[in-house]
């Protein structure tokens, strides 16, 4: 059973959210359960000890502490990297971009809107999570991971378009993905070994074979998603051709 956790210090609101969550599970017959409706962070932490996943609805401000929800979310992220986190908060407590960078939550639910809107949001978040679970079960989603300092970042493999290096910045890999571009220290060789669907088409580029939209064998030029063009070295052109034919 997929666990759901709720943190809210206001007793009336907590009862209300609890009711919405339980009803949603019941009506849709989801394979989920509300593990705990806690009034403080300790209540959530004690119940999530032996869990590997979960959907968390967290109130940002608990009692006097205005960042309690964020602190708890950081702990949850560290323990369960793939947990779904939803913040329930008033508008002025919200540091939107900060949360996005630190926690990357599934959603935000603003308290200062009608009760009905809040309910709809909670229902939507539960069903979105359910959809994700189904999708994950259908085909185990592959993740492309990289490290920056002590932090681990991940991008779904299906989003990755290419990895490249430039002469201007040796020792630095540029990741281009759908809706994302970033750079981090590393080298292409290690990624080439680690991920089989990444193809070394040139000494400075690794491309995702699933994201090739066109390959010009004559001019040895491959076109990837988002119209990114990449040259293919003479040595690799035949291999790439063979690989693409066999697909």
């Amino acid at each position, binding site marked *: 059973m997929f666990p759901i956790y709720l943190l809210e210090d206001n007793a009336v609101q907590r009862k209300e959210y609890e009711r919405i969550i339980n009803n949603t599970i019941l009506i849709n017959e989801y394979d989920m359960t509300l593990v705990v409706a806690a009034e403080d962070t300790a209540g959530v932490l004690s119940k999530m000890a032996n869990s590997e996943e979960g959907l968390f609805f967290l109130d940002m401000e608990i009692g006097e502490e205005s*960042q309690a929800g*964020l602190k708890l979310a950081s702990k949850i992220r560290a323990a369960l990297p793939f947990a779904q986190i939803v913040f329930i908060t008033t508008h002025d407590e919200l*540091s939107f971009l*900060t949360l996005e960078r630190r926690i990357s939550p599934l959603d935000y639910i603003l308290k200062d809107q009608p009760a009905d809107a809040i309910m709809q949001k909670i229902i939507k978040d539960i069903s979105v999570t359910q959809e994700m679970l189904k999708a994950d079960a259908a085909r185990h989603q592959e993740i492309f991971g990289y490290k920056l300092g002590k932090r681990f970042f991940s991008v779904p493999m299906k989003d990755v378009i290419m990895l490249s290096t430039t002469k*201007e910045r040796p020792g*630095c890999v540029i990741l281009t993905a759908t809706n994302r*571009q970033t*750079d981090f220290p590393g080298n292409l060789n290690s990624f080439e070994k680690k991920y089989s669907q990444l193809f070394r088409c040139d000494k400075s580029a690794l491309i995702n074979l699933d994201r090739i939209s066109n390959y010009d064998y004559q001019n040895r030029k491959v076109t990837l998603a988002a119209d990114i063009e990449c040259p293919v070295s003479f040595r690799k052109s035949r291999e790439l051709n063979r690989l693409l034919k066999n697909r």
Partner: protein
Amino acid sequence: MVDISILDSIIQSFFLYFGIIVVYNHIFKRTGIKMFIKSSTLLILLSLIGCLLDDMASVIFLLAVVIEEKIRFGKLIFSHLNVLLTLLSGQTLVFSLAAFLSESILSLSLGIVQVNGLSKFSHVLVGIDIVIICVFDLIALRFVYSILKKQPFSMAKLQSLKIDKRLFVFLLVLFGSIELLLLVGNIQGVTATIQFTLLIVFILMIGLMSWQMIEMIQVYTRQQQLENEKQQNEQLSTYLKSVEQQYLELRKFKHDYKNLIVSLNTQTDMGKVKDYLIKANHNNVLETSLNDAKIAQVEQLKDTAIRGLVVQKFFYAKKCGVELNVETLNEAFQISEAVTIVVRVIGNLLDNAIEQAQKMADKSVIIAFNKIDDMLEISVRNAIDSTFNQQQIFKTGYSTKGQNRGLGLANVRELVGRQRQFHLDIESKAGYVTMTLIIMEDE
């Protein structure tokens, strides 16, 4: 060539390295029993190696120090090596000069024409040699000391110029040349006279080079100073701009209040005054951005340059009809290095974001300052629409010949690319784009 006995050779080497080690320890204030024992052991070892390998012992000494630093600190400390190289080169020169002088004195006083004839008097020769070395060393030290006294030329200043590495290469080449000269001289059995002539030419060359180098350093220092001044001027003008904008805000505010007071004055009925105030409140006349919570967060930014920039952009955004929100999560945010580059990157990112936001329905830009684990993050986020050419933005990462140089992003990339611990992360999601500058703290 004069053959001298092993003992003499050991004593000679001993004095050669004695001077170097003592001065080196003095410069870096290495004192204590442990250091003394270490230095003594090193000295004895070097003396023994020196008697076998002659001048090549200096090369071995240098290599040993390089390896030791590599092991102990994981990298080379150029300031230490520079001092060592200078000392080694200087001492080698003094040594050769002393050899020439002692041989000359002895052969003149004994009336020996053939240099080989001096081999019989090797003890005396070495004695005179050592005396001359000591005298020269003392004179040289005295001379350097008096120069340093006149012109405070501290190690810290040299380090601040960041020319350590270049200086090291220069000194290394110099040292290598001297060693080569001596090595070939020894193998070929060149007499001290010829060696001395070669060295004199060499010293002249060094003198010329040093003079040139000092000149170069001075020019370089001045250049750096100018650069700094330029940057300061830029910051000052940024600051002035922000003050100007704040002043304009204040004036507008004052104007609103004046109007309010004037209209209050015309009212005689208390009830009407109340009505008016309620209305005014309702119309946000009293609301002001001056002490807005959004901008109050800049207090957490500890670098004045960055704070100034954010404040300036805040007012600039306001002028453009865009709302700039600052998020700092109530914790101090301080950047330890390359602040000027960070300022330029953020300035560019904010300009882009404000320009883009102006065209959007959601006219707001968020800038967030985060400290996560061992890295600092500065994120700028704004709304985008379909005209926002994502592909081009992404493309430029691979080919810098992209066409969107006008976006200022190419500029940002270049700035970020120059700094090893800087990384740029661009993510677009659900109609918003977030550009994040990531700064790794530890090095």
